């Protein structure tokens, strides 16, 4: 039997989903699908087996939309039979595929309460299929039940995670970690650095993570990205959709925006209280930064420069921070550049340096959130790879 930990947020927000849970069905929401695990059914050999029924879940924001037009479900088990040995005719085989990552379905079920009307809600929809299947199995084996979810529920109804953050609990820092939970952040640019920022921010309890990038996830990106993309992932999907799918395995609240930030949509950044800027040299960067300063939205701008020297690489990582109380350093610290193509222009980037740039940025953000103590109060730092030196500048204390 599968016993998956589950998120509670949507389940508590929607009464019909909540009812499924309260009646101890093994419900899970994953990748925008509603799953009911441990549904007993009879297979061809008249044996009671368990399968998972999967429904798409139409959600708009936090609002569950009625499944009226979506009466079919999918099934991970074999062809289900009735106790009298006949097949359920509503079940038809499909070419097996992963309906969500790691969950293969083999059958589609299609039956509705009446020919001209679908299901009003997900409770009615799922229990209809569960009952049809499990009644036949229970007739053969009185020990089986679809109501297997008598396990510990997560009482943290506000959690953004699909399962409990036991790392913070084990470390005894749940309260400090909670300081991050009310935040809404944006990551502008999901290149090497931005993708590692997402990797780290996704594991904090921030409420929303808006990710902005108009580019596709290509083969070369995989070598400067956290995790290990399979060749199937290199299917020209947008970066934001690729990362949304990966990180939605773990949490809610990731909002993909499959376009770059420009003048036409810059007001979208008003929805967040912090911005990570991880974009390459680009005229739009100045526009974004001016806007964030005018809106009093704090941000961190990341950047690196790497070049060859004697057939080895050397370079600098930069993290420049801006808060409403410290903006006068931006003009000298942040480099905008005008896309000049000089001999020494390089776009050398390496995953570990991207990751390090991201790590420094996220540590600084956590200092701003009072997660870490900030004894230095610097608003600009560089790490020089070759000399292995961190230089701090623009601390509040030296401001005259």
């Amino acid at each position, binding site marked *: 039997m599968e016993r998956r930990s589950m998120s509670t947020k949507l389940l508590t927000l929607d009464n019909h989903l909540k009812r499924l849970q309260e009646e101890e069905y093994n419900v899970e929401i994953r990748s925008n699908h509603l799953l009911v695990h441990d549904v007993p059914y009879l297979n061809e050999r008249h044996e009671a087996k368990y399968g998972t029924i999967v429904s798409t879940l139409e959600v708009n924001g936090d609002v569950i939309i009625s499944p009226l037009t979506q009466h079919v479900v999918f099934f991970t088990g074999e062809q289900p039979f009735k106790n009298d040995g006949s097949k359920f005719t509503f079940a038809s085989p499909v070419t097996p595929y992963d309906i969500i990552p790691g969950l293969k379905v083999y059958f589609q079920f299609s039956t509705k309460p009446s020919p001209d009307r679908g299901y009003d809600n997900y409770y009615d929809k799922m229990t209809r299929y569960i009952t049809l299947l499990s009644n036949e199995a229970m007739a053969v084996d009185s020990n089986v039940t679809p109501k297997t979810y008598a396990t510990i529920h997560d009482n943290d109804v506000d959690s953004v995670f699909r399962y409990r953050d036991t790392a913070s609990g084990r470390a005894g820092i749940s309260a400090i970690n909670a300081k991050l939970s009310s935040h809404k952040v944006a990551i502008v640019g999901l290149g090497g650095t931005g993708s590692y920022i997402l990797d780290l921010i996704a594991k904090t309890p921030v409420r929303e993570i808006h990710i902005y990038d108009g580019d596709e996830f290509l083969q070369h990106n995989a070598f400067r990205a956290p995790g290990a993309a399979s060749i199937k992932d290199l299917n020209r999907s947008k970066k934001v959709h690729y990362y949304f799918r990966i990180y939605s395995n773990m949490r809610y609240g990731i909002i993909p925006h499959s376009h770059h930030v420009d003048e036409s949509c810059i007001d979208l950044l008003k929805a967040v209280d912090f911005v990570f800027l991880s974009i390459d040299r680009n005229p739009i960067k100045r526009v974004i930064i001016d806007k964030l300063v005018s809106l009093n939205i704090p941000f961190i701008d990341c*950047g690196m420069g790497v070049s060859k020297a004697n057939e080895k690489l050397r370079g600098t990582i930069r993290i420049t921070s801006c808060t409403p109380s410290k903006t006068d350093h931006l003009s000298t610290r942040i480099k905008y550049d005008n896309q000049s193509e000089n001999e020494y222009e390089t776009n050398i980037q390496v995953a570990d340096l991207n990751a390090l740039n991201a790590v420094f940025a996220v540590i600084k953000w956590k200092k701003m959130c009072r997660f870490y103590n900030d004894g230095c109060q610097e608003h600009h730092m*560089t790490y*020089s790879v070759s000399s292995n030196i961190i230089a701090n500048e623009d601390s509040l204390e030296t401001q005259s």
Partner: protein
Amino acid sequence: MSEEQAHPEKEEHGKKEFTIIVNSTPKPWNDDEISYDQVVKLAFPNAAPNEEFTVAYTMAEGKKKDGNLVKGQKVRITNGTSFDVDKTTNS
């Protein structure tokens, strides 16, 4: 962010010969201080005047050993003072 902050002491310039490191390459330097523009020119002799670089230094002379230079600033150097001059514009 004045020149004085990066280089508080204005001493007479001795005619000394130093070796400093610029982007991992040793360079001779005949003064006990160096400015942002001078470091950039050592690193990128053909850089246009409007091009902007992040200039990080370490093992400088004086109280502040490690820091960044911006346009208009100087830093006191000694043998082995090391500079990294990069366009930190990639992500």
